């Protein structure tokens, strides 16, 4: 069912949006939060088959007992510090009780009244230059749940499914859940702020090196809370919580959609139902999930199988001293280091490619080359397919592609073809070039022959070159490149054209 939407500007005229976010970060430790089973969020265990990264605790088998992962605690403290939070001197875990097959113990180990980190803030900068401080309420440690695949039924959604298949690889993956306070004053920038906030968390997590933070893989997941209140009203409106938002672009779209949807309902005198809503990437709408009800009565109580965590102040200071710079400061530094113009840099930031360009530069590419690939060819394909650029190709491969050009093994045009193969999953740039037979023709005699043919076919051009009109050579170079199916180095062809024309 298509919901009625109000024009965004009109909605903002009548109502003030109030936002809140819950972001889950999967930590990239080697093992799970409370057991020594391998963690699928660690690069070493990507692509493991279903139920191969499990141990008795992952399955909630009787008698299995949790023990807290020290590295996960350190990562959580670092993340808390990077969010400007205070770190608890003592905190405990709690059981969140619910029955659902993704959690075989029938409870999730989380933190309730004593989060490891609390009261912080994240500075973000919007594309229009506006600075914003997002207040953080808490960041707490917990474990992820297993993954259900619903089989059968007509829609593939949960309703109507005949049975479900469960993979417990993800059960027990260390998570930090970051919860914001209510965010006021975003106004027209609300959708962009949502995107920028998630981007800032992603950047922080990446700079700490505690997670790969790939949204499309579920390393970073955002639930967006949106409510509206009439202009001039002090009283908060009823909020909805949109889940399943798996890209930064979706976060922005989902918040915009909820503002427009809720505004239409409220303006018609209706009421907002407090509920969980699901974002649908394909159609760009949210649909109602389950209403908040008895199911939210989780009966939290302190986890008796785990002892409290009491981070020493020495550890906290050690981790604080090792913190990387804040994203806003980092942006300023990178812009200066890379020597990009305002426009070039804004292009990168708006395209959410700062970390991609950075990683490409770190892998050896020149900043300008890295920028051109990401904001050019890769962005074009990403837009065309409606996917995130990051999901198309690894930064290291872009750097390799550029290296092949710099070494003269590929021309720009051949490199674009190689990139196409890389994005299609055919392997590394060198492998694709090899498999597709993409290589620069370095056979001088073949080039010379092609140049002679082209000159002979265009005697008027030959005459012009001889008369000193060097720019006329372009037509001949074009003909030679065409004859060589683009597999020649244009600069070398130009040299040969000028040589042969004057001989």
């Amino acid at each position, binding site marked *: 069912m298509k919901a009625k939407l109000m024009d965004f500007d009109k909605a903002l005229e009548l109502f003030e949006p109030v936002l809140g976010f819950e972001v889950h970060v999967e930590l990239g430790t080697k093992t799970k939060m409370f057991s020594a089973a391998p963690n699928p969020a660690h690069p070493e265990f990507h692509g493991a088959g279903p139920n191969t990264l499990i141990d008795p605790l992952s399955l909630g088998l009787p008698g299995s007992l949790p023990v*807290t992962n020290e590295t996960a605690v350190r990562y959580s403290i670092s993340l808390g510090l990077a969010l400007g939070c205070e770190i608890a001197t003592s905190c405990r875990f709690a059981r969140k009780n619910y029955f659902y*097959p993704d959690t075989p113990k029938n409870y999730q180990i989380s933190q309730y009244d004593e989060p490891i980190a609390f009261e912080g803030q994240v500075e973000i900068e919007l594309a229009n230059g506006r600075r914003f401080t997002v207040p953080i309420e808490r960041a707490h440690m917990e474990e992820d749940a297993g993954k*259900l695949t619903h089989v059968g039924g007509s829609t593939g959604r949960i309703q109507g499914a005949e049975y479900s298949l469960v*993979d417990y690889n993800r059960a027990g993956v260390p998570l930090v859940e970051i919860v914001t306070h209510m965010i006021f004053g975003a106004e027209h920038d609300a959708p962009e702020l949502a995107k920028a906030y998630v981007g800032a968390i992603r950047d922080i997590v990446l700079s700490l090196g505690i997670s790969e933070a790939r949204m499309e893989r579920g390393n970073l997941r955002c639930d967006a809370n949106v409510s509206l209140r009439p202009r001039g009203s002090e009283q908060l409106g009823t909020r909805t919580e949109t889940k399943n938002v798996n890209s930064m672009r979706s976060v922005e779209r989902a918040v915009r959609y909820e503002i427009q949807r809720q505004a239409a309902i409220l303006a018609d005198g209706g009421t907002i139902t407090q509920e969980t809503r699901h974002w649908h990437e394909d159609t760009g709408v949210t649909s109602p999930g389950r209403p908040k009800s*008895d199911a939210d009565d989780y009966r939290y109580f*302190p986890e008796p199988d785990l*002892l409290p*965590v009491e981070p020493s102040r020495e550890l906290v200071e050690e981790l604080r001293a090792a913190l990387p710079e804040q994203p806003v400061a980092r942006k300023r530094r990178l812009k200066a280091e890379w020597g990009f113009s305002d426009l070039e840099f804004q292009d990168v930031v708006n395209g959410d490619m700062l970390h991609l360009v950075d990683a490409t530069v770190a892998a050896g590419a020149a900043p300008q080359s890295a920028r051109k690939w990401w904001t050019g060819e890769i962005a074009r394909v990403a837009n065309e397919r409606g996917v995130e650029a990051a999901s198309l190709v690894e930064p290291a491969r872009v750097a390799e592609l550029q290296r092949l050009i710099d070494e003269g093994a590929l021309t720009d045009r051949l490199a674009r073809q190689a990139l196409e193969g890389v994005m299609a999953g055919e392997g590394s740039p060198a492998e694709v070039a090899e498999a597709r037979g993409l290589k620069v023709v370095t056979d001088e005699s073949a080039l010379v022959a092609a140049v002679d043919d082209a000159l002979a076919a265009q005697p008027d051009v030959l005459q012009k070159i001889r008369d000193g009109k060097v720019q006329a050579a372009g037509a001949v170079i074009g003909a030679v490149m065409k004859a060589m199916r683009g597999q020649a180095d244009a600069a070398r062809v130009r040299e040969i054209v000028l040589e042969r024309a004057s001989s």
Partner: protein
Amino acid sequence: MSEITREEVQHLAGLARIALTDDEVTSLTTELSQIVDAIATVREVAGDDIPATSHPVPMANVLREDVVGETLTHEQAFAGAPSHDGERFRVSAILGEEQ
């Protein structure tokens, strides 16, 4: 005497997926009330300066190094499973949403 109602007992039983007979609801209503009263008595002596006891043994920071241990084989994992497809556990369709 605290005011635990039959409805609250039934609600809790529902959340805990425990089927109770009417007689059990009656006796549990009484027992739970007594437990709540007992806790209220303790609360009277415990001032604000006394932290809540969640763990009887004064220990903290029992942590594990981040080192991979043993995993289960599919055969072991599915040994007690009522249903599976060789790779994943098979459960009845759930009418609800993930938490």
